[in-house]
């Protein structure tokens, strides 16, 4: 293993021990040891998460909030306990400010459909950034087409940084919502979200942050950030897919109408009229993703046990190493060179298309993402049709970067 230097900078972190917790990392792909560098798309799961999900189904599965019997009460307690785990993880003021959704996309749509439809009207402005994922673009376009709001895009620089001076100029009295990524899924840029939030609030706008990428690498603190909404998916945080989170400040969630109607979100129902349940259940119609939510709780427990700050130091070391090693590959250009970056490195080769690169290195056992990463407007801005993206999780090590660079040699052999 080539993690000697990593150990030196981060004695609290034992990557070999972490790797032993992720069963998939001891498998092979095309007969080669799996080198997984696609955690920004979806992270692998530690045994602790897999066991938690299996344990729910094997020992105490029932519907939540309904059964008047022991296993339903037990699973309800575990499900609701996860809400508290998430509250603590992001330092929200109350557990009922944590709403379970399917994923971050649904969380953003929930805000667009309820807060957006209810509180925004024609001519009101929503500011997003030029590096957003489609999930933080399309819901606002749909709202624009329905309500006549104005969608404005704060540009990014050639390095992939948010242009804060442009943001300052675009922020105005018509701005009602600023919706931005905490961290770019394509470039790795970490946005100055505390500053954005402070300025947006000073202008009277609310703030939604897409924390899908950030929440796995950077400590996030709702009290310190002060944002109004924060969204993320469980599956990028080493938890199951099918579970996501919307954090919303209590007074806003209280003022917002429900998203979907159905069971579990009501207080009373007659054919004439229904009344809504209290938070957070008002926003959780129907039977939720029970085992997945509990699995997410186990994932956060796992991240906490390893230590998010130790993970961050390890990943920062790997990102530096990857940046250095990739820079030495002939004809390679890194896309996204902001000073404040985390865990993602996107690049292009001047002699091969990202898809061809991904296909070739796949056969060497290296899993990366190639394409537009659900951020086509950003691709246009950076003037590339697609990129190769290597993204780093807590279980990656320098040997993974070496395998990537080695496999790029095969691309050069064919195309160079």
């Amino acid at each position, binding site marked *: 293993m080539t993690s000697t230097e990593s150990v030196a900078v981060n004695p609290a972190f034992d990557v070999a021990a972490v790797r032993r917790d992720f069963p998939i990392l001891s498998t092979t792909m*095309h007969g080669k040891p799996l080198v997984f560098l696609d955690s920004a798309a979806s992270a692998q799961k530690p045994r602790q998460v897999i066991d938690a999900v299996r344990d729910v189904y094997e020992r105490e599965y029932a519907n939540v909030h309904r059964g008047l019997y022991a296993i339903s009460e037990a699973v309800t307690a575990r499900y609701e306990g996860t809400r508290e785990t998430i509250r603590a993880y992001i330092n929200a003021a109350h557990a009922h400010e944590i709403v379970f959704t399917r994923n971050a996309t649904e969380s953003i749509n929930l805000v667009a459909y309820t807060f957006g439809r209810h509180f925004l009207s024609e001519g009101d402005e929503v500011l997003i950034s030029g590096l957003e994922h489609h999930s933080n673009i399309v819901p606002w376009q749909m709202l624009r087409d329905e309500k006549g709001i104005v969608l404005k895009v704060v540009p990014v620089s050639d390095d992939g940084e948010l242009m804060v001076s442009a943001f300052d100029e675009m922020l105005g009295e018509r701005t009602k919502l600023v919706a931005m990524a905490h961290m770019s899924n394509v470039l790795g840029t970490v946005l100055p979200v505390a500053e954005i939030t402070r300025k947006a609030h000073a202008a009277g706008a609310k703030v939604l942050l897409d924390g899908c990428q950030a929440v796995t690498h950077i400590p996030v603190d709702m009290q310190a950030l002060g944002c109004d909404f924060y969204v993320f998916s469980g599956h990028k945080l080493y938890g199951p897919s099918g579970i996501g989170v919307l954090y919303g400040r209590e007074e806003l969630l209280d003022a917002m109408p429900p998203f979907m109607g159905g069971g579990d979100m009501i207080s009373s129902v007659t054919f004439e009229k229904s009344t809504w349940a209290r938070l957070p259940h008002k926003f959780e119609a129907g039977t939720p993703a029970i085992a997945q939510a509990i699995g997410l709780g186990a994932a956060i427990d796992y991240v906490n046990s390893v230590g998010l700050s130790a993970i961050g130091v390890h990943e920062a070391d790997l990102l530096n190493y990857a940046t250095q090693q990739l820079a030495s590959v002939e004809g390679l250009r890194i896309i996204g060179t902001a000073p404040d970056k985390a865990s993602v490195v996107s690049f292009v080769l001047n002699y*091969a*298309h*990202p*898809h*061809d690169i991904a*296909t*070739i290195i796949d*056969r060497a056992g290296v899993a990366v993402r*190639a*394409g*537009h990463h659900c951020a*086509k407007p950003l*691709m246009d801005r950076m003037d590339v*049709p*697609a990129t190769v993206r290597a993204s780093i999780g807590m279980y990656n090590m320098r040997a993974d970067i070496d395998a990537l660079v080695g496999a790029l040699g*095969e691309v050069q*052999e*064919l*195309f160079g």
Partner: protein
Amino acid sequence: MSDELRELYQEVILDHGKHPRNFHACDDATNEARGNNPLCGDQLVIYLTLGADGKIVDASFLGKGCAISMASASMMTELLKGRTPAQAQAMFDAFHGMCTGDENAPELQEDLEKLRVLSGVRDFPTRVKCATLPWHTMVAALEGEAEISTE
């Protein structure tokens, strides 16, 4: 490097990928369609010019994509000239069948044998659409559709 990779990226494909033939717009085109692969963002435009006798007298393309899609479009435009729309459709059926491994599809005719270098995509399911996007777009152009997209 694996044999499958060498099979996929044969010299002919690399050559067409790097130096695509008929790679230009055509102002006189009678039929034109844009093809999108929303999954990967690849885009291309196929330009066809149909003569008075109904045959394709010129075919060209523009676009951005991987070596497979560029080579496929390049070779397709070379082979389309002089054919009727019905013959072009038959070419599509045979080529599509070869890429997807469909045993019921017609065999490639002798004069289309050179397309067989693209048959390696059968071993790469995620890359089949790269090879077939130009062909779907060509059929759309013949049918008068302005835009198609593969998923």
